[in-house]
């Protein structure tokens, strides 16, 4: 499961959401603020400022889209998994991602946006999803590295979201986090097995980590200084920990794991800082990140096209299920009459 600490605007020109409550809303606004300040939760039927609603729809739907698109790079490897055991594990993981997408779409729908509208946003390219999936999975070790690093980064991001101020989102995240640790552990273990294999297998692991490491650091989103929406997200209790703090937590947790695994993280600047009691790390290429978000990553077009085709190819199934349900209903009514 994957979220990018996504405060990425869906469409250009919509960089920040204005927060200007009208006078008649002032009292409702005060009550809303008081509840947020008391660390209370907001539920679907409660009054909420339009900007809060919009921010949540954008964030939860981007999160849901990430789950669904995230099935694609791993799905590529189901038919090529090296053993029946790994195949069964991978199917279970990809199925989980589909489930996570569903929990999240359901949470977004409670804000008054229909599933069709949400999917339309994804399929038309208007809505974003985590850019990590716009990179190819070139060898089997990529599947392990995705579990270890991408899911690992996602877990860092998602644990604080379990305390998000919007009830349905936080409940969905609790469910997701419960299922998530299997994803990271299976990936790490798959890599461990390869590291005990031949030199060629060890090289595959190192190659996968080399390609994914920086993309994973970017998953936490732009540096705090360049995240205009972060402060508002914090104010609203949607975001609990800043992008840079989460990134640091991830680096600190991952370095010892890499050591046990026996690979090198591809960053010459990565070293322990005794004064900070954290690892220092090098510069992230944000230009590349934004290029990919804007649709120019190596696989953006392919991923979206695959997703749209899968949806369109499934149209007859949705139609048939509905026709069948209607027929059953008519039959029941006729029998009752």
């Amino acid at each position, binding site marked *: 499961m994957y979220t990018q600490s996504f405060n990425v605007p869906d469409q250009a020109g919509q960089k920040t959401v204005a927060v200007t409550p009208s006078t008649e809303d002032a009292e409702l606004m005060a009550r809303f603020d008081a509840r947020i300040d008391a660390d209370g939760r907001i539920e679907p039927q409660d009054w909420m400022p339009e900007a809060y609603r919009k921010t949540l729809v954008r964030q939860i739907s981007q999160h849901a889209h990430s789950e669904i698109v995230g099935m694609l790079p791993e799905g590529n490897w189901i038919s090529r998994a090296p053993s029946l055991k790994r195949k069964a594990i991978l199917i279970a993981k990809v199925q989980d991602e589909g489930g996570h997408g569903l929990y999240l779409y359901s949470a977004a729908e409670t804000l008054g946006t229909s599933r*069709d509208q949400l999917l339309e946003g994804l399929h038309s390219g208007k809505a974003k999803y985590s850019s990590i999936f716009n990179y190819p999975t070139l060898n089997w070790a990529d599947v392990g590295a995705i579990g270890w690093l991408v899911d690992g980064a996602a877990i860092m991001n998602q644990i604080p979201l379990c305390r998000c101020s919007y009830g349905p989102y936080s409940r969905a995240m609790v469910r997701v986090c419960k299922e998530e640790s299997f994803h990271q552990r299976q990936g790490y273990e798959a890599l461990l097995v390869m590291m005990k294999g031949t030199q060629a297998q060890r090289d595959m692991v190192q190659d996968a980590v080399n390609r994914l490491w920086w993309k994973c650091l970017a998953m936490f989103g732009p540096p705090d200084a360049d995240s205009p929406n972060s402060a508002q997200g914090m104010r609203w209790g949607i975001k609990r920990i800043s992008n840079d703090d989460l990134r640091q937590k991830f680096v600190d947790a991952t370095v010892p794991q890499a050591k046990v695994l026996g690979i090198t993280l591809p960053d010459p600047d990565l070293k322990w800082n005794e004064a900070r009691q954290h690892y220092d790390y090098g510069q992230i290429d944000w230009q590349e990140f934004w290029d990919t978000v804007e649709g120019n990553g190596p696989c953006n077009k392919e991923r979206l096209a695959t997703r749209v085709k899968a949806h369109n190819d499934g149209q007859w199934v949705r139609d048939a299920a509905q026709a069948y349900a209607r027929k059953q209903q008519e039959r029941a009514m006729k029998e009752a009459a």
Partner: protein
Amino acid sequence: MNTTALKEWPLWEIFVRSKQGLEHKHCGSLHAADASQALHMARDVYTRRQEGVSIWVVPSAAITASNPDEKGEFFDPAADKIYRHPTFYEIPDEVGHM
């Protein structure tokens, strides 16, 4: 792809009993064409790790909910009746647990 809301499968609320002896608990919602499909999908989505022994599916539209805007008045009658709680009553220590 401009499908209208009417084209969507209806929404169902899902309740799962995690084990015999416990109540069914709301765990989420999903879209399905009819009740039996909703049951099958709920099984695949919410009980992949043996989280349940029984599932209820209820059309979301069939649920009547109290109005959050009237939460104050609606629940007010219970607010001043602290004598409904056992801790309201002082019982001498020598009585022990009661």
